[in-house]
């Protein structure tokens, strides 16, 4: 294709052996980026767990493109004002963007279906290439492409997985070397079997996620949707307690469990543990705060203090292993025990 391209450079990558997007049996290498860090050449994957997650990721993807004089191409039957994250009152005036062709909302029939309503990968690739090819000529500095594959995977005459994978590979081969195109392929996590999800994911080099709630280079807090909670990375100490307490307090409290993914938390101070304990106590009843994937360094500290002194807080999923039955460890680590 005739897209502007760049030399291939090694992406910042990380191992993601237990990503819930699919049970990869071996370590695969992905770059994981918040949506605001998606850049030209990224062929990114979003397996969303629900409308809120999709709205917040795709909404930001669209809005930032429109704000930055970048073209946004969305293949969908939903009208512009119904696009993810566009219903808020703060949304831009979409009509003007549609008018200027900066926002292209292309119905599926026109973009990728044959006369019989069947998904045709070649047609999709051509449509996207065509739109991308016009970007510079139309005066835009880059192009953002996105579509939701959920319908393809779910439609009565659903696409063959192999066909989809081939389409994704070819699309990826086109986007990756580009210096002006970036794409997010979306799918509802629950619409696919785990193995299909993993296979589709593996055709992408970048996993896109919601922008962090907080990131000062030392502590990073990211909302998680499935399970409901936060991922806390880096180091949590007194300077950052308020930021963490705010984000924790803002989570929907009605959920029976709030999960904190602590797999990348390298340090928590005693004040941080007190904060967790206070939050758990304020939730009351049998609602628990579940600490998932505790790094050994942090688990060591909690065990020194004693789980029994942190009522309402339970260890959850362990790295590479499923969550304990009921989300709670029994035996020596359970509540009410001395050690």
């Amino acid at each position, binding site marked *: 294709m005739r897209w502007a391209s760049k030399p291939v450079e090694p992406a910042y990558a990380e191992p993601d052996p237990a990503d819930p997007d699919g049970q990869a049996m071996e370590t695969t290498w992905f770059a994981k980026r918040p949506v605001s860090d998606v850049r030209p050449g990224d062929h990114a994957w979003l397996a969303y767990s629900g409308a809120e997650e999709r709205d917040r990721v795709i909404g930001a993807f669209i809005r930032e493109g429109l704000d930055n004089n970048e073209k946004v191409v969305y293949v969908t039957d939903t009208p512009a004002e119904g696009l993810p994250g566009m219903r808020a009152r703060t949304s831009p005036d979409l009509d003007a963007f549609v008018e200027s062709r900066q926002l292209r909302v292309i119905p599926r029939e026109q973009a990728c279906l044959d006369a019989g309503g069947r998904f045709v990968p070649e047609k999709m690739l051509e449509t996207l290439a065509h739109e991308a090819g016009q970007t510079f000529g139309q005066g835009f500095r880059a192009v953002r492409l996105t579509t939701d594959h959920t319908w393809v995977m779910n439609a009565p005459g659903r696409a063959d997985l192999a066909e989809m994978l081939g389409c994704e590979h070819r699309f990826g081969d086109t986007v990756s070397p580009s210096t002006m195109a970036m794409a997010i392929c979306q799918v509802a996590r629950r619409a696919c079997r785990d193995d299909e999800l993993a296979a589709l994911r593996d055709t992408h080099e970048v996993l896109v996620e919601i922008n962090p709630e907080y990131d000062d280079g*030392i502590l990073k807090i990211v909302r998680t949707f499935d399970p409901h909670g936060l991922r806390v*990375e*880096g*180091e949590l*100490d*007194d*300077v950052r307690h308020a930021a963490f307490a705010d984000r924790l307090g803002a989570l929907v409290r009605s959920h029976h469990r709030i999960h904190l993914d602590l797999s*990348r*938390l*390298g*340090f*928590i*101070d*005693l*004040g941080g*543990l*007190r904060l967790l*304990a*206070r939050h*758990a*106590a304020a939730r009351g009843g049998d609602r628990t705060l579940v600490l998932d994937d505790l*790094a*050994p*360094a942090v688990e*060591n*500290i909690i065990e*020194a*203090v*004693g789980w*029994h*002194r*942190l*009522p309402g807080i339970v260890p959850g999923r362990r790295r590479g292993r499923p969550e304990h039955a009921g989300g709670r460890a029994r035996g020596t680590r359970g509540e*009410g*025990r*001395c*050690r």
Partner: protein
Amino acid sequence: MSSAPFTHRVLPYDGMDDYLAGAVPFLRAGVEAGDRVLAVTPLASRMLLRDALGTDTAAEIGFTDSAGWFAHPSRTLSDCLCEADAPAWNGRRLRLLAEPAWAARRPLEVLEWQRVEALVNIAFTGTGAAILCAYARTLPPGVIAASRRTHPEIVKGGAALANPLYTDPWAYSTQCDSAPLPAPPPGAETLPLDLPDLYWLRQYVADFARRTPLPHDDLQRLLVAVTEIVTNATRHGRPPIVLTMWADPEDRSLVCQVADGGRWPPGADLGLIPPRPGGPGRFGLWAVRLLCSGVQIRTGDRGTTVRLRLRLPDPADGAAPAATATTVNTA
């Protein structure tokens, strides 16, 4: 909760006959009363006790080796208190025969174990536990003398008598901290802390610790402890706050000292008594004590000094984990 009053008695003994004459009736009475009976002793005493009690009675008693049980003053106090409090026992009284391991203790450790003996009298109030501590007369005179000041009652000829030398536990504890701390050695590294972000403090401490054989888990504990102390000093103390670190070959430990210009108010919580479990109470200084091998606190007109000590692996053990294999999680 048991209606029996909490008791903490010392059993001084000359030779094993004397020991058995005091310990056996204590344990037997516990078994007969349906208490939870625990005997924490060296192996030799356990063998003698089993013989003297007979198989049936001995089977009702939990025997534990004192070397492992008396591992760490604050942890042992905390675990034992939790055991005495445990609701799972439906009010069955904890009855404990304790024969602390005094041999091979460094002076600082001996001091802390003696302090624990005193604090037991405060911490266990209301638990109904019965604790009998056996002290051989062959122990160092200082150890014997301290035992007379830390136990409200003394067992003589099978009877418990009030101990006239018993000292108020808080007064005793204050005396433990009366000697001034020796000055840091000349080679100690000093870092004035004027940065509000403790992230950089932890980097500094970790860098220093990596030059010692301190195991990674202990480094993590030290980082949590020093963060807590500096957070306290920043919030409640006065500048200048100064961190000093050195390795103490005599105590075979890594020492991390935080000094500030403030003075703690009289009666300030030194974290010596475990908070009761079940609530998100305060566990700052108390947790710091659990995380470190030892904590020394001095506060006065010239400011406040907190010394955190982390035991370094004994080279004689030959199994010291390599410090090079560790990293601090900063990713």
